[in-house]
């Protein structure tokens, strides 16, 4: 039963991940990523980690990805432009992908060869009570650090998006448009980009 569920959701996750990279439209990519996140949450449930699964749906799918979708809709992004300058990146990406894939198979092979150790069937590890207890006793310092990190992120986000002086910003955009038109006329794609 658990094996069947694992292969179902693993297949779903991989399919969604491939579609995330394949699609040029950012909103399609976002929907695919949501698919990956939800499948992983289901796998976490089969791994007896219900708290992490719920938090995964709540934080990743419910907050971070809503923000991403919001930004995509707000900026009204078009399709990705084909890569015309850094063409060698395809080779680099493909090579790196192959190396990582080989490494994955090596890990699979190596871990499978280890004589079977008994699965620890302690189902209570993932319960909220145990996670909360560990979080506020043994791992209190990391939790505090993460809290400060989040505070810094909030301040940073506000400062980044704050509009300083409206006229200046429009000027910048005008310049940018003029620069691009000029570059297009000359036909110099290096300046145009």
């Amino acid at each position: 039963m658990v094996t069947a569920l694992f292969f179902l959701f693993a297949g779903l996750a991989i399919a969604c991940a491939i579609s995330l990279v394949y699609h040029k439209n950012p909103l399609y990519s976002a929907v695919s990523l949501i698919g990956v996140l939800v499948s992983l949450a289901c796998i976490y449930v089969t791994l007896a980690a219900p708290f992490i699964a719920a938090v995964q749906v709540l934080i990743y799918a419910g907050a971070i990805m809503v923000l991403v979708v919001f930004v995509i809709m707000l900026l009204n992004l078009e399709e990705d432009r084909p890569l015309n300058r850094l063409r060698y990146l395809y080779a680099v990406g493909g090579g790196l992908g192959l190396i990582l894939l080989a490494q994955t198979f090596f890990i699979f092979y190596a871990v499978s060869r280890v004589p079977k150790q008994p699965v620890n069937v302690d189902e209570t590890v993932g319960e909220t009570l145990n996670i909360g207890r560990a979080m506020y006793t043994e791992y209190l310092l990391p939790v505090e650090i993460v809290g400060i990190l989040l505070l810094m992120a909030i301040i940073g986000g506000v400062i980044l998006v704050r509009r300083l002086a409206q006229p200046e910003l429009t000027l910048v955009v005008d310049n940018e448009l003029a620069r691009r038109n000029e570059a297009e006329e000359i036909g110099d794609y290096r300046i145009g980009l």
Partner: protein
Amino acid sequence: MEPSLASYLALSGILFTIGTVGVIFKRNAIGMFMCIELMLNAVNLTFVAFSRYYADVTGQLFVFMVMSVAAAEAAVGLGIIIAFFRNRISVDVDDASILKN
């Protein structure tokens, strides 16, 4: 019967590979951001799998930390993307290569 630890690690490795390739192939800042999230999730899966097979809560706590970092990353990263879009009317990372303006 349960799937072995190796199969979880394999799934995680495949997802991580796809994420890495995506970061390199995508030219769109939001697309790259999403691929990075995918890589973080692949790592999270190994944490939870190890936590299950060693009956240790530490792995799950680490997942929690990674999620918090991802949330912080989303806040700052999307802020940068919006600020960049305001100046360049584009989220293409190639457009970030020019220091002029």
